[in-house]
């Protein structure tokens, strides 16, 4: 054997200051991440965690949006009136002002609660899809999941099933659409960004064609308008009983993704790397996809197609705190809820009749997204 000299500990010095000064660096033991982050994230993240004031600000934003949502409307209600009605409700008395009480508990509160869960759920589902497919364009809409779940929901509407039936069928068709998209996009064990989005476009086209066909066959006096308005998306007409049926599923899916949020970082790597890191991706990947699809199906069956949130909000979150899903998921959750509240409040207050949600999310969301893209150059890549 050739003699092999002992090699001193090598130092990687492509840009290291050590080599420039010629002085050996002192041994580093137990050092922690420096306080400084990068870019915007520097202001919001410290030692890999969100700054306390930033978290408080996000919660403040959410609470402010929720208050505006409860107060604003055709019949505006002031904060003292809300507090009084809440007090009456808690102490079990008759409402001091019957009209305020019935508007609050019959209309505003359920709607506000639903908006919070829908916005948070869709944003988290979008962020999860983007990580699982390591594709910044993956959302329930672009993957064809939204359109797929809509087919299931429209079918159930035609059969006049109750909300539970609508949800079950929506989930079934959502998972089916997801499976078709993934199998089209997967070529020789690899899924490219472009192929996945193309497959999503194809599946959406098929699903929308099926929806059109179902609409043609639906009763034009009762079922057709119901389906059409529902497809455009609206949070109108919810009650606490329908929330009690649908929201637990959103919570379940969101909780699943929230708990696995750090593992999403690993799933976003190539399949070989994720497996080499010791992950059982045969279990983990389908689990995350199922959670995100469950959220989408539940949202679609309660309030139709609500586009854009799943794309816009996670990317806003990434521009604020970087790409670590440990932070992106909670920030998306809070931002998504706040954004949905704002859009729903606008939808029902801007004009005399209500504007469909998907119209507003596109009209507001798209320009906002362009603005952010131009400002940051899409620095998630």
């Amino acid at each position, binding site marked *: 054997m050739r003699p092999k000299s002992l090699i001193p500990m090598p130092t990687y010095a492509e840009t290291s200051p050590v080599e420039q000064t010629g002085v050996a660096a002192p041994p580093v033991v137990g*050092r922690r991440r420096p306080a400084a982050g*990068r870019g915007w994230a520097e202001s919001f993240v410290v030692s890999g965690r969100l700054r306390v004031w930033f978290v408080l600000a996000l919660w403040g934003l959410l609470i402010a949006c929720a208050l505006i949502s409860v107060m604003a409307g055709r019949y505006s209600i002031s904060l003292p009136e809300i507090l009084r009605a809440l007090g009456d409700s808690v102490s079990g008395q008759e409402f001091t002002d019957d009209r305020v009480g019935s508007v609050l508990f019959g209309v505003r509160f359920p709607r506000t609660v639903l908006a919070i869960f829908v916005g948070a759920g869709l944003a988290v589902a979008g962020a999860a899809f983007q990580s699982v497919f390591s594709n910044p364009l993956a959302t329930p809409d672009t993957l064809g999941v939204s359109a797929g779940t809509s087919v299931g929901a429209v079918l159930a509407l035609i059969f006049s099933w109750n909300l539970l039936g609508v949800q079950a069928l929506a989930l079934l068709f959502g998972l089916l659409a997801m499976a078709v998209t993934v199998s089209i996009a997967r070529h020789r064990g690899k899924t490219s960004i472009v192929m996945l989005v193309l497959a999503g476009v194809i599946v959406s086209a098929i699903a929308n064609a099926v929806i059109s066909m179902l609409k043609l066959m639906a009763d034009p006096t009762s079922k057709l308008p119901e389906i059409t308005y529902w497809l455009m998306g609206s949070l109108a007409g919810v009650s606490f009983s329908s929330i009690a049926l649908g929201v637990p599923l959103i919570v379940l899916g969101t909780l699943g993704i929230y708990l696995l949020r750090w*593992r999403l970082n690993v799933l976003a790597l190539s399949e070989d790397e994720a497996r080499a890191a010791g992950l059982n991706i045969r279990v983990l990947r389908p689990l995350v996809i199922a959670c995100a699809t469950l959220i989408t199906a539940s949202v679609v069956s309660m309030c139709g197609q609500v586009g854009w949130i799943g794309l816009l909000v996670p990317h806003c979150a990434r521009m604020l705190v970087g790409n670590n899903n440990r932070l992106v998921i909670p920030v998306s959750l809070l931002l998504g809820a706040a954004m949905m509240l704002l859009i729903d409040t606008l939808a029902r207050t801007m004009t005399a009749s209500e504007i469909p949600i998907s119209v507003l999310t596109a009209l507001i969301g798209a320009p906002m997204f362009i603005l952010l893209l131009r400002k940051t150059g899409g620095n998630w890549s």
Partner: protein
Amino acid sequence: MTLQVKDGTFRYPLSREPILEDINFHVEPGELLAILGPNGAGKTTLMRTMTGLQQWSSGHTEIDGVNLKDMSPREIGRTIAYVPQARSVVSLSLSGLDMVTIGRAAHLGMIAQPGPAEESMAWETLASIGADHLADMPCGNMSGGQFQMILIARALVAEPRIMVLDEPETGLDFHNQMVVLNLLQHLVREKNLVVVMNTHYPAHAIRIADKIILIDRVHRTRFGPVDEVMTEENLGDIFDVDLRISDIEHGDRRVPTVTAIDVRPR
């Protein structure tokens, strides 16, 4: 921890010709195995099959006598660290430190989050290979050499006994090639790891490897110690190139070089 492959054969489904046939080798702790061969010979396939990322069609990989198939993904993740080629920078890229922290995944529970302990481990690992200045840089903004260091740190932070690297020095500049080679040699000699690497550079293999697997264009393999396998005749046959192997003396060190003279017609 001994890494051993017994009668490993791999063929793609529906294909009759095997990519790898009757592979037999073993590497002990403190030994570096280099795999050499022309493009398309099956080097990457061999790495993927020996680490369980791809199943052998027949035969198997053993770690200390335990069949890899009988180990859980988590156990394998704790034992073997795989360093892919550095050119695949993914979108939605993490910062250097977050990327290195991922290496702890096999040690954490399914829903556990990395805490201060994991984070300072990642920091120390980065610092130990002199790459701590990359901690806050997004991986997408890194050069090939910088990203390679992050990937090696990510592998090391898992505290593996076996490290498998796919062309770790390819695409790096001259300086960084030496840095990576020195680092690998250090891991083998000082940390007593089993290191397996693919390489396109015969001189690098002679310089740091203890054992060699040569794979030729028709997937025939030859396994043995460096001195036996890395001969002018063998290398010439494998690459269809006329070449000379010589040593350059520098003080008391002898540095091997391999110089290609000309191509042979295939």
